[in-house]
């Protein structure tokens, strides 16, 4: 069973890792943030799989922390002055 769960963790890593392509392509910061979001959830999934498969319950706390702070980056993304439309950096 442990092997299966480890393999599942590896697959989650590959799948969410593919999502990083969205981080590269964008086009908008919202899209890029989604890649981070997916990886956060995927990281949680990997951590729970590894914790159970490897019988390391301490690893569950990593998943717990990741889950708790899952929305944090997205909340931080929305900080800023309202209505400033042109947000690109350099032209």
């Amino acid at each position, binding site marked *: *069973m442990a092997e*299966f*769960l480890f393999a*599942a963790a590896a*697959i*989650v890593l590959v*799948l*969410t890792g*593919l*999502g990083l*392509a*969205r981080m590269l392509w*964008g*086009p*908008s*910061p*919202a*899209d890029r*943030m*989604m*890649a981070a*979001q*997916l990886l956060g*959830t*995927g990281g*949680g*999934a990997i951590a*729970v*799989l590894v*914790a*159970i498969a490897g*019988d390391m*319950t301490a690893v*569950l*706390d990593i*998943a*717990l922390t990741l*889950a*708790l*702070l*899952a*929305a*944090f*980056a*997205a*909340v931080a*993304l*929305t900080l*800023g002055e*309202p*209505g400033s*439309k042109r*947000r*690109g950096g350099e032209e």
Partner: protein
Amino acid sequence: MSLLLDLFTIVAVSGGLFFFLAGTVGLLRFPDTLTRLHALTKADNLGLGLIVLGLLPQCPDIVSALKLVAIWALVQLGGATASQLIAEFARRGGGER
């Protein structure tokens, strides 16, 4: 019994993996920000949910099981909020270049 539980775990975790796959494909293939967001959050909450569900029978103790459920609940809450906020952000044009 244990075999049955193991089977359940395998089925549920595989289901979870499928939803992760769906989420990733959606994130990569869907045409615009909002549909991608839709695909992402739906799939990825279900994916993690199924994995957690599948792992429950394998938990060594009750505390770990509770933690698993808590993790899932937190990701539900956080993921839902995050997608709302990202959508809001995208709609305001914050993301356009």
